[in-house]
């Protein structure tokens, strides 16, 4: 904590200074229509060189030689205004009127400063409050979907840890590191749970895309930055109260989306397998695996226990069932979400405040899952010492709880790897829960229960009642900042943030639950006298886990802003930032837990027990679930940012930053990475020679620079990792070497060149921007092969490179037809990437590129490349799928698998859309407005599912394509679905699964959502202050898709997001 002395010393260093009072004016600049402060407006004394610009609150102060004085206030997109000031007695408010040529997003926040759009050179996307609130959702991040150019929510690709969002900005810039942008919340990087942020407290979002915009964030900005800014209090004579709410309903998931074979086909297959003797081995298996009801009936029939007639009758009864109907009826419901938020704000010149409370309640579609969130926030601003000192204090608190008691489809697998048979019933016709064949065979279960073991039956609907799985999150964040104006041009700021997030998991499995009963039974043994001993006590089992994350950041920053001679302005920002983030996790498992008394019992985790189920299994240990871990990340950064503008026509920006981190074992001079950027912005339309009437506003921006990416899983030293020893059966602690020495380890860097034009037509009828970028990600952590004799097969070091390029077009058109106004926004983004250097080569082509699918980087191809086996149709005699082996038609699937080279695989492009964007139209008529967002994703491939005989021939059902399989000669002309093989042939399945016929184009256009809102005008106070009623419908469906298959290309394996509808109200007094 040594560096906090800096804070104290700093306070001592700044001694109050006496400034001349007599000739000092202060005021603020606001948008006449909305009352929003205008940041970066130019304020200058007429006929003199004195001037300044408004700060992040729209405020300015200026030394003038004498009174009265005339000042000129100008701001891009607004009509300039002159004002005469006669004395310094009061604060003047200058209201500027829009002059037609308006740029989207007038001010932008980089997280370090709020600057005027026109003074920037970088590529920013500003999501204002109106657009942000267009979508009704409980969280912040999902509201960014389909409205920001360059930003995409990935629905395919490698699965990432929960701490990362699925967002990517301008394509792939890392291989093993993070893929998602850095999230900055109120000036500091945010590590907490994003779902704990209440969107009602958010004012705006700025997305920083290029090097110039993002490089201020240095080594964490390689994937771009999303800056989230909270609402602050606004000046108001009387306190303003705003209440907003919405209620939404989400439909049940479409369980019939994934086509599967019918119960009747399933039964026919079981019968066929039964006749083949497939179940004979299972019958005598010492683990007593369960058999389905049909197999049990067939067995009873064979053993003469029931008559043929009864057997057929029972089977025919089961044929008519469909489990999905029961699942839909009992396991799912319409999801409900309720959001309420209220805030009060107001204040004077000296003090501004905003206090808010929000409550969200969510009933998920899975029965048993629900969540709640309470958020409280306070923001305050005080101005002292004649407005020279500004103090800000913000406090945010969020408490959420998630109840996760649903029974998942995976839990319903009746045995390992066996999905529940499709003719299972969850309840009888009266709704009484019924048991399913689960875990073990019925006769074994009966036998065990007669010996005194606990009931070993499983009823899914009862299991729902036996869970008590609660996750709680308490998150609080304190921001405090002091800003002191040393002179009119120089100010110094100190910002501090403390952020703490406590995640608590309490997963109590009631003793009535299958999990407990099963565990107790498996470890039960009978003693000599026949009495039963239960090493696992019969009581609740409680798993607790908690993760505590504490972050603190301290920033000291100096800003120098001065109008120079000849209408130029210089703005320099320099500062240093230290950041410390600590995470500690622990988890504990309690047996025999008694919730009333909060007591538990000790169990013996060291003795090896013989399984009650299979006496041959003798070495069973009672599972233990205790673990501890700790992480700590530290960053220290120095940064410098400068903007020089000449006549607001030529703008030059430059930034430099040095980041250092506690990269383990790296020498101090390599812990840091210096990064820089430069940029220019040329307002062509301000040149004398430019006379276009069609495009009265046009400017050209170009930037170049570096940002970085941190990957902290490696170390420069040989490192070993201790592991708990119980798993290896040895009582000795041991450590495995996780990292061979790598003295040359350094940070990943991303270089980007961005060039763009911004333009606007007369009256802002059409405005927009086009960005082009080239990107090169260097020194990426990649794997490189080593000679195996070194004892290390692959070495992870800074060896890989990815190049990317792309463009973004953003157009907004406003057309008025009488009383109708049509606003059209069109966004087009294209992001392509290519791995340009990767040293490791896949030793097993099929394994690296097909099975498991993605992520093995290949030079010259996109990171998420999709490959498949070449297809040669079905054999006309057998219906076997055919491929090519060394150029010849072949059915030697093992041969194809082992000898097909990468060049012989068919390449289908990328798994992630190359182009994406949206087309949003908002039609306003009087007080009504209707807005529809059509989104599109183009230029990518998806691997679809089809029948796999490895599930069909093991009695586990499968894809409905089974019905369309090859059955007779000639079928090969109408189907590509292979015939059913006589025996299990996993390699044949695999060949078909990864053949080109199953790869489809993902291109599609979707009607994402519609928002209908009513905002009455009138003189009643609540109407005047603002009343909005809206109706919002989301996930409305696909309008067009390239593939003929009946799939949603974005949801090939899962179930598409269900439609939802929300009704909301927003009212201000």
């Amino acid at each position, binding site marked *: 904590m040594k560096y906090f002395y800096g804070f104290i010393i700093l306070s001592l260093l700044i001694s109050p200074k006496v400034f001349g009072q007599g000739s000092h004016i202060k005021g603020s600049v606001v948008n006449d229509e909305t009352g929003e402060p205008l940041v970066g407006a130019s304020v200058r004394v007429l006929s003199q060189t004195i001037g300044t610009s408004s700060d992040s609150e729209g405020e300015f102060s200026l030394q003038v030689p004498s009174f009265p004085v005339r000042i000129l206030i100008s701001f891009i997109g607004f009509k300039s205004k002159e004002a005469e000031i006669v004395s310094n007695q009061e604060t003047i408010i200058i209201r500027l009127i829009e002059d037609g040529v308006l740029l989207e997003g007038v001010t932008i926040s980089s997280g370090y400063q709020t600057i005027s759009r026109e003074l920037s050179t970088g590529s920013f996307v500003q999501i204002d409050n109106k657009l942000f609130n267009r979508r009704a959702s409980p969280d912040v991040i999902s509201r960014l979907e389909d409205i920001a150019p360059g930003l995409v929510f990935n629905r395919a690709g490698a699965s990432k840890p929960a701490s990362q969002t699925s967002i990517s900005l301008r394509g792939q810039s890392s291989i093993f590191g993070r893929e998602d942008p850095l999230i900055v919340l109120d000036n500091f990087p945010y590590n907490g749970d994003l779902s704990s942020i209440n969107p009602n407290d958010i004012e705006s979002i700025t997305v920083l895309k290029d090097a110039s915009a993002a490089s201020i964030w240095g080594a964490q900005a390689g994937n771009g930055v999303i800056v989230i800014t909270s609402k602050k209090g606004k000046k108001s004579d009387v306190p303003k109260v705003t209440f907003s709410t919405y209620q939404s309903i989400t439909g049940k998931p479409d369980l019939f989306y994934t086509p599967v074979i019918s119960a009747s086909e399933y039964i026919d297959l079981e019968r066929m397998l039964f006749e083949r003797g497939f179940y004979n081995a299972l019958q005598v298996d010492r683990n007593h695996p369960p058999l389905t009801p049909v197999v049990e009936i067939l067995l009873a029939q064979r053993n003469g226990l029931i008559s043929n007639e009864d057997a057929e009758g029972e089977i025919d009864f089961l044929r008519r069932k469909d489990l999905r109907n029961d699942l839909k009826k009992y396991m799912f419901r319409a999801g409900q979400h309720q959001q309420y938020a209220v805030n009060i704000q107001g204040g004077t010149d000296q003090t501004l405040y905003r206090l808010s409370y929000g409550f969200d309640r969510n009933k998920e579609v899975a029965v048993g899952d629900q969540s709640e969130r309470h958020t409280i926030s306070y923001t305050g601003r005080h101005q002292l010492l004649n407005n020279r000192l500004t103090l800000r204090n913000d406090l945010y608190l969020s408490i959420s709880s998630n109840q996760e008691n649903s029974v998942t489809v995976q839990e319903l697998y009746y045995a390992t790897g066996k999905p529940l048979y499709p003719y299972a019933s969850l309840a009888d016709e009266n709704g009484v829960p019924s048991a399913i064949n689960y875990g073990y065979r019925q006769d074994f279960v009966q036998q065990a229960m007669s010996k005194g073991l606990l009931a070993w039956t499983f009823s899914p609907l009862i299991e729902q009642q036996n869970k008590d799985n609660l996750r709680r999150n308490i998150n609080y964040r304190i921001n405090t900042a002091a800003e002191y104006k040393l002179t009119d041009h120089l100010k110094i700021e100190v910002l501090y943030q403390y952020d703490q997030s406590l995640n608590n998991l309490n997963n109590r499995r009631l003793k009535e639950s299958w999990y407990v009963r099963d565990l107790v039974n498996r470890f039960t043994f009978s003693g000599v006298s026949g009495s039963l001993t239960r090493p696992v006590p019969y009581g609740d089992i409680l798993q607790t886990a908690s993760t505590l994350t504490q972050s603190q950041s301290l920033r000291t920053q100096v800003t120098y802003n001065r109008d120079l001679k000849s209408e130029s302005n210089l703005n320099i920002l320099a500062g240093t930032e230290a950041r410390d983030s600590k995470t500690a996790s622990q988890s504990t498992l309690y047996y025999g837990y008694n919730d009333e008394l909060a007591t538990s019992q000790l169990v013996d985790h060291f003795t090896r027990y013989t399984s009650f189920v299979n006496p041959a299994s003798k070495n069973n240990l009672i599972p233990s679930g205790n673990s501890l871990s700790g992480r700590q990340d530290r960053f220290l950064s120095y940064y410098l940012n400068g903007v020089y503008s000449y006549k607001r026509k030529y703008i030059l920006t430059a930034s430099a930053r040095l980041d250092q981190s506690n990269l383990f074992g790296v020498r101090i001079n390599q812990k840091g990475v210096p990064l820089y950027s430069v940029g220019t912005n040329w307002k062509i339309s301000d040149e004398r020679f430019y006379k276009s009437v069609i495009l009265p506003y046009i400017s050209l921006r170009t930037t170049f620079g570096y940002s970085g990416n941190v990957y902290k899983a490696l*170390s420069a030293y040989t490192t070993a990792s201790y592991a708990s020893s119980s798993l290896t059966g040895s009582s000795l602690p041991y450590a495995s070497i996780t990292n061979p020495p790598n003295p040359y380890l350094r940070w990943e860097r991303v270089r980007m060149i961005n060039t763009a034009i911004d333009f606007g037509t007369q009256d802002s009828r059409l405005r927009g921007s086009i960005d082009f970028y080239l990107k090169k990600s260097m020194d990426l952590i990649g794997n490189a092969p080593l000679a195996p004799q070194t*004892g290390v097969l692959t070495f992870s070091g800074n060896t890989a490179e990815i190049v990317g390029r792309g463009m973004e077009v953003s157009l907004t058109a406003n057309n008025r037809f009488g009383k109708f106004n049509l606003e059209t926004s069109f966004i087009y983004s294209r992001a392509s990437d290519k791995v340009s250097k990767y040293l490791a080569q896949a030793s097993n082509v099929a394994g690296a590129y097909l099975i498991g699918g993605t992520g093995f980087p290949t030079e010259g191809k996109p990171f998420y490349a999709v490959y498949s086996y070449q297809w040669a149709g079905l054999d006309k005699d057998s219906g076997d799928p055919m491929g090519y082996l060394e150029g010849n038609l072949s059915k030697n699937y093992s041969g194809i698998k082992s000898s097909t080279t990468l060049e012989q695989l068919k390449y289908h492009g990328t798994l992630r859309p190359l182009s994406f964007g949206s087309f949003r139209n908002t039609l306003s008529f009087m007080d009504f407005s209707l807005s529809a967002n059509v989104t599109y994703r183009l230029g990518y491939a998806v691997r679809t599912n089809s029948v796999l005989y490895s599930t069909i021939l093991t009695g586990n059902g499968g894809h409905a394509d089974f019905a369309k399989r090859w059955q007779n000669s000639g079928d090969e002309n109408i189907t590509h679905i292979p015939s059913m093989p006589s025996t299990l042939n996993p390699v044949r399945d695999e060949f078909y699964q990864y053949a080109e016929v199953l790869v489809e184009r993902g291109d599609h256009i979707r009607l994402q959502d519609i928002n209908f809102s009513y905002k009455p005008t009138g003189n009643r106070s609540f109407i005047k202050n603002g009343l909005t009623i809206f109706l919002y419908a989301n996930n409305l469906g696909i309008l067009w898709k390239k593939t003929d298959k009946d799939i949603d290309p974005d949801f090939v394996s899962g179930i598409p997001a269900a439609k939802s509808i929300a009704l909301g109200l927003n009212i201000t007094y």
Partner: protein
Amino acid sequence: MKKSIFGKICVLCFIFISCQSSFLDVKPNKSWVVPTSLQDLQAILDSRMELNIAPGINIPAADDFYTPDIYIQYLTIPQKNSYLWKPDIYEGSLGQDWNLMYKIVFYSNVVLEGVSASKPATDEEKLQWLRLNSGALFFRSFAYYYLSELFCKPYADQTADTDPGIPLRFTADINSISQRASLRQSYQQILDDLTLAIPYLPDTSPFLSRPSKAASWALLSRVYLSMGNYVKAEEAATACLKLNGVLLDFNTVDITAPNPFPVSESGANPEIIFDQILSSSAFVTVSGVDSLFYRTYHENDLRKTAFYFDAYGMKMFKGSYSGTTQLFGGLTTSEVYFTRAECYARNGKTELALADLDYILKRRWRNETYLPLTLHKEEVLEKILLERRKELVARGIRWFDLRRLNKERQFSKHLERFSEGITYKLPANDNRYTFPIPDNEISSSSIIQNPR
């Protein structure tokens, strides 16, 4: 005024810079350790999952097991090629055993370097220091021994200087590449390291995963046996059995159980001197024991039931000697007894040889059924070798024995096997008794490949 402000800012920056070194020295992950302390080094040497591994590719190649055609598909490419004695084993896939053995060498070298960088302060530390150093030498020798048996021609004194050995590595530095030493140098290194290690190791170890004097002598006897130095092998075996000569009487275990032998970690199988598991068990789980060989077990021989069970129409190997699901591949007293018996027989001590053999078999046969053997001098060695084979099933040793015995005309074997309609042959002393070095090793370090 301006100057003084910038002065203050400079002071501020200085404060930040001056404290940055300690601020950034925090460990990012608490479980990470730079192994420098003796305790850390000991923990590395206790990584059983990495260090207590024996190779498995040699098992399919030997003549104890066969895989029916229908199960051939379950073999990995190297297993199948090893089984069929194909010239190319890997077909581009990884050389698992080569890699695993060199990983042991890497771990050992990390420990050896860590030990040599530390300075023991107390006597107790000094003792631990010596043990760690010796332990690491033991592990490295064991890996070198396996590598030599798999990837070098059988040792012959006359050609040992010209036959290529293995790359000997003495550093953990991953940038350093070694070329193949001569076969004599390779074996000499193994012998030297073991000789260096023995004095400082404990006689026996309570943890069977840790090296001991007994284990080192047992390994030495294996190495000398493979070199054909029967005098030294006999000495080493005797030295080992002096420290630990316990044999398990099979009459005391439940031979009908699926896993008759006690779990090694609890120390309950007293025959285990040093624990290792085979790198892969998959081959044995789809293969049956050769039926002619199976018939050589007498009805009263308990091993017939303790080792095998009926499944899938075959006599299958039950599994591990150490009671776990993975196959055992380490050192046992019974192996050392057999080694000594063989050496006695070869060194002309027939009586002693027979005594050892009777001593073992008495504990392998049903109580009261075993009669001491009376054999001609010429028959003793043959009998010992047969019983040795019957004892050390599925541990990988059979392949090593085939290699060395092929050099003696009376014991050499011509192997044949019939699979998927094709007959495969492996004549004695064929080049295919030496496995090829994995392709990626050849391509990245350009060492000499073995002819196949």
